[in-house]
């Protein structure tokens, strides 16, 4: 019961913040609303006893990606004024796309045979995640690392090119 209350509260926080991100006319509000959405996800992870993932979510998404996003937004033209706002563009096509996506997802949700997992006792997940990464899933893990490495090198090449110009 309490778990349900907390879950719905967190879900409301996540969805509400996400809606604010989408609908706010102020780009800075949108960015800061992301904080609520990401924190809601952190809460849901904790509720699911995924302690490690929750912390990584907090560290990477809130501490890293969110701040980078804000940082990028702060470099937008005219940002020094608090009354910054952004226009909505392409409302019509967006509604069509969103509608189609909603229908597909609803269909999938209805068709899926949901089964409830048995009650579990919270246990540390760090070891399990570590073992999974370097055991069963070592290939995907390494491939992902390689992709990231390539992206890093690409970023360095592009930025050094810019500097030379």
């Amino acid at each position, binding site marked *: 019961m*309490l778990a349900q209350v907390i879950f719905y509260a967190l879900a409301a926080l996540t969805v509400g913040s996400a809606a604010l991100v989408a609908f706010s006319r102020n780009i800075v509000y949108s960015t*800061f609303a992301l904080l609520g959405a990401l924190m809601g996800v952190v809460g849901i992870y904790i509720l699911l006893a995924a302690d490690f993932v929750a912390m990584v979510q907090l*560290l990477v998404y809130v*501490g*890293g990606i*969110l701040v980078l996003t*804000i*940082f990028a937004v*702060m470099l937008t033209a005219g940002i020094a004024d*608090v009354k910054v706002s952004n226009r909505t563009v392409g409302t019509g096509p967006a509604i069509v796309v969103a509608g189609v996506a909603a229908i597909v997802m609803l269909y999938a949700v209805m068709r899926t045979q949901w089964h409830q997992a048995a009650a579990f006792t919270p246990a540390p997940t760090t070891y399990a995640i570590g073992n999974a990464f370097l055991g069963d899933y070592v290939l995907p893990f390494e491939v992902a690392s390689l992709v990231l490495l390539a992206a890093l090198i690409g970023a360095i090449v592009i930025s050094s090119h810019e500097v030379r110009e």
Partner: protein
Amino acid sequence: MQTLIQNLIASGAFGKNPPRDLVAAIVVFVMSLVVFLAIALPFAGIVTWVERRVWARIQSRVGPNRVGPQGFLQWLADGVKIVCKEDIVPDEADARLFKLAPFLVMLAFTLPWAVMPFSSSLILADLNVGILYMTAVTALTVVGVLMAGWASNNKWSLIGGVRSAAQIVSYEIPAGLSIFPVVLMTGTLSMQGIIRGQGWAPQHWFLFANPFTFVAANILYMSSLAEANRTPFDLPEAESELVAGFATEYSGWRYACFSMAEWGNLFIIGAIITTLFLGGWQFPHVTNNVVAMNVLELITFSVKVLFLVFLSMWIRATLPRVRIDQLMTACWKYFVPISFVNMIGTAVWVAIWPDGNVAMGYIMFAGAIALGAIFIQRVIYYLRRSQMEVYLNPTI
């Protein structure tokens, strides 16, 4: 209220043992409050007084010495004064975000106290991912700072906020990477687990476990200073350039929130480094009395942390501020690569000596003592030289 709780119990909201779980929840809540009100807030306050006194000593001044014995109650007086001040929200500011920002900063300052390992039993929650939690929640500060910087609608504040964001995001990488050598050696992320992996004697501390951890400890300390906006990395609030950076437009208790978080963060920095590298609360087992042991451990932990806090005050009083490009260069060109080397080096070291190398511990401890002796000798040399009694004005 009572009916609500009874209803909640009746509905099974607290699991199989309603009264026990409810009590546990309330105890945790009250303890958090007590820890916050009884430790975090006074600590942040007292540190302001200590800092001003230490600073004054270094600058050959007296410092605040009027309120209470040796001016000890100065922090209370300042606190009362600042809370009584008018809380100004500038007309042109974005009032909502402007008011929200101090809370976020305070949140980031409060959350780490939950896993603060004061002693072997005095810890609110020995989280399985304690050290990760600590670094993750302190990262929330930057969101508050950015919010304050933008919402103030002051260009200097905005520059302060953007500087702060760039700085904290960058320095989180070497700070995070410097934690990994210790995690590699202990195989746990729990605060207590890391402390239990070390001994009470300095040669058993992770600081002296191998050369890589020693470097990692130094990088972690410097990066933490940068994350906490302390000199020489206090660019976001550089008085001489940005006036007070993101806090320029704040006044009254909202400003107090920022400064309190800043000073309280010193304790958190000290606690992280003490836990990871300085043996935490480890104290030789001198008595079987649990309470006495805990008190001794608490004292050990506090002394180590306060030494690190004092060190940061010393640094602040001595060093000038670096420039933003130098700050970034130091991080990306030096700290990050060195941190990676530390990680790999520690991994190799652990592979060769899985149980650690005690001889190395002794050697490094001896080396550290020698370095410290040279340093203290220099300090005494300059102290002697500046000893002087020249008062030219006959009226003094």
